[in-house]
């Protein structure tokens, strides 16, 4: 028992850990995606923010250019550098260039890229400042004064320290948020799985605490998935319950049914011993008849046990009732049971298909035929008939049928009077009854034009439904 419990706990743990591993790997992949995305986003945001400072400074400088005595002179405003120094630790480069590209003031390092003349300003470009990656912008100002005409370009550049720092901070912020969300996700996943597993735990405990003979249905608690399992288990227990019930009945029936015939046999045997020699052959004859009858009874009881077992366990299959009728006729030897009685077979040309178990049906048919042969009057007929809803396997004899009070008791587990007579009509019909019930059918009995008919009626299975 302890090892079983351990196995249960281990299985539970492994499910939990499997889901946790799934969640973790999902988070890891998601984290990588978020990292890359937020870094790209951060870089872009930083670039946009600092590009604005750059162009602000460039425009400030461009605005400060005046034409003095035929020369372009920049009066670099401190505010331009104030803007640039908002990027605290970045180096700065700037250049004011005349129409022919000569440096008017500023640093040689701020050099517009080749072919920039064709680009429409303002334009940004990436370059380096003393080997450090940097971002530049060039704006132009056009002059058409009397003594100066042409385009003065202003190029301002800055290293990327502040941009990278901002991008990194944005990424970090995003990562922290993602991390927190991830932890929340892991926690909630853990709790949800735990609570989802709890009903299983409860179920296990309930089962363990149960009386071994308690096969009543369990209460379905927990989510639908667990309820399905409970439901399946309940159905399984019901089947078990039915079978155990059937077994119990069989045992009690057997004991009940056998007591009288066995007592009778013993009485006959004692009488045979005590009677005078003249009566002995007669006594032995009776003994033999009793013994044979007991054998029949045993056959039927076993057959009934078989039917109950099969109807519970063998799944219904399409069966042709005509085959069953033939099989029944083959298995029963009418000559042996009722010498001289003819049995007619009346079957249709088309197959008559029902969903049932072949073995059970054959047993039921045999019992019906045997009853007719033993208790009815010739001629006896076995046949099959069908319509769209119902198909039946029937047995008919020319007699009046059993008395009304017998009819009303038929279908019970056994019929005492039959048993006490050493015959078993009641038991035989109870088998037919059980088969009919198991496959959704019924048993009908009644007088027809040709005599008394017993029929096993089952729903018709259309062939194209298969």
């Amino acid at each position, binding site marked *: 028992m302890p090892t079983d419990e351990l196995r249960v706990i281990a299985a539970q743990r492994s499910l939990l850990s499997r889901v946790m591993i799934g969640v973790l790997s999902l988070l890891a992949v998601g984290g990588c995606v978020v990292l890359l995305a937020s870094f790209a986003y951060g870089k872009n945001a930083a670039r946009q923010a600092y590009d604005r400072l750059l162009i602000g400074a460039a425009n400030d400088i461009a605005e400060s250019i005046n034409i003095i005595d035929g020369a372009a*002179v*920049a*009066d*670099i*405003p*401190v505010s*331009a*550098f*104030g803007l*640039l*120094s908002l990027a*605290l*630790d970045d*180096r*700065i*480069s700037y250049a*004011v260039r005349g129409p022919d590209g000569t440096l*008017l*003031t*500023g*640093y040689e390092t701020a050099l517009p890229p080749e072919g920039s003349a064709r680009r429409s300003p303002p334009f940004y470009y990436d370059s380096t*400042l*003393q*080997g*450090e990656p940097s971002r530049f912008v060039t704006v132009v100002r056009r002059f058409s004064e009397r003594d100066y005409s042409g385009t003065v370009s202003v190029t301002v550049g800055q290293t990327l320290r502040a941009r990278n720092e901002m991008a990194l901070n944005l990424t970090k912020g995003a990562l922290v948020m993602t991390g927190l969300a991830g932890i929340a996700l892991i926690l909630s996943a853990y709790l949800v799985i735990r609570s989802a597993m709890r009903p299983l735990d409860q179920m296990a405990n309930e089962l363990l605490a149960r009386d071994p003979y308690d096969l009543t249905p369990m209460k379905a608690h927990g989510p639908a998935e667990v309820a399905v399992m409970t439901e399946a288990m309940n159905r399984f227990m019901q089947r078990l319950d039915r079978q155990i019930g059937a077994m119990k009945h069989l045992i009690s029936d057997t004991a009940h049914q056998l007591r009288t015939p066995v007592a009778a046999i013993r009485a006959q045997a004692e009488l045979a011993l005590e009677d005078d020699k003249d009566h002995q052959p007669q006594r032995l004859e009776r003994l033999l008849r009793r013994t044979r009858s007991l054998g029949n009874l045993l056959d039927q009881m076993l057959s009934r046990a078989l039917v109950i077992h099969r109807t519970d366990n063998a799944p219904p299959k399409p069966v042709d009732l005509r085959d069953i009728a033939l099989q029944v006729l083959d298995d029963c030897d009418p000559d042996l049971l009722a010498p001289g009685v003819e049995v007619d077979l009346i079957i249709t040309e088309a197959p008559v298909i029902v969903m049932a178990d072949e073995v059970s049906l054959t047993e039921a048919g045999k019992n019906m035929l045997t009853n007719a042969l033993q208790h009815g009057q010739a001629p006896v007929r076995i046949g099959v008939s069908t319509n769209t809803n119902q198909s039946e396997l029937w047995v008919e004899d020319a007699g009046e049928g059993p008395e009304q009070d017998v009819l009303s008791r038929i279908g019970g587990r056994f019929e005492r009077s039959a048993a006490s007579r050493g015959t078993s009509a009641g038991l035989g019909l109870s088998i037919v009854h059980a088969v009919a019930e198991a496959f959704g059918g019924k048993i009908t009995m009644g007088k027809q034009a040709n005599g008394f008919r017993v029929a096993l009626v089952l729903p018709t299975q259309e062939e194209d439904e298969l």
Partner: protein
Amino acid sequence: MIRAALFALLLPLSVSAQEAVQSFAAPAATPDTEIIVRSTTDIAVLTPALNAFVALYPGISITYEQWGSNALYADSRAACEGQIPPADVVFSSGVHQMVDLVNRACASPYVSEITRALPASRTWRDELWGITLEPAVIIYNTALVPAEDAPTTRFALLDLMRRAETPYRGKIATYDVEASGLGFLFAFMDSLEATTFGGLLEGFARTNSVATCCSAEIIDGVASGEYLIAYNVLGSYVSSVPRENIGVIHPDDYTLLLSRAYMIPKTARNKDGAEVLLDFLLSDAGQNILAAGNLVQRPDSDETALSESAQRPIAIDPKLLVAMDRHRRTRFVGQWRSTFGALPAGGFLSAP
């Protein structure tokens, strides 16, 4: 205590003209590293700090070269481009020039607990650090200038210069912006700080004021009575050699505060030593010694009880690059020259 040698070199024509050299090493020590410091600061002013340093680190000796700020800038740029051997430390009052050097990627970064503690306005890119805090002051000859005339603000100075028949004609001195990097920086910051600058230039022109080169010359001139008032003199130099007849005024309207900038050239051969010296100068011990030499103005000292808003530290940041702009400088110097006339032929005498 000092095994010191003082050389006075006179190489007036060379750009890389150092004005004086002195070596510092702990007595009886055998230093295995030597750091070369090129500085605009007078040797005498820094001597106590450097002595304390070599005493603390006997393994390091210092060769201290004193330079003019413009010459030092030219030298550092040449060293940066690999034309001449570099110094291990460049320490200059021409802060705008230092910012320019850093902007040209001539500096080597360094971070320590101590440098991190500096306010943002006294450091840039972890490559330039403001070591000192020295006010730009007005000095006057207490014997010759009546107490009621002593200008406590720039407005008072303006009024003084606008007086008809002023006795201060030809008796007011200041640094020449072309000859002195520091003078240019102070004048430029004045032009940014307030509108009084235009009035001052006009006043200087009206009174035939004198623009000359060097702190010592100006201070000596005021002491001797050659000048009566000097404007924008570096306060630390005035206090370093106390004279009885010189009065010092921290202008009430605003007082510029200069932080001399310390840089380790990226080509320096002994960066480790330079970093140790930097940490020492910024440490409490170093700052106390500098404060004793009036190189660090303490906010709690009585004589400089200025309001917060009147103190205008010159922030070490890229805004100073404007002062280096060719056009801006040309325009500014042109304005200056129209006030003070052309530079004397042959320049000013280079003197410490």
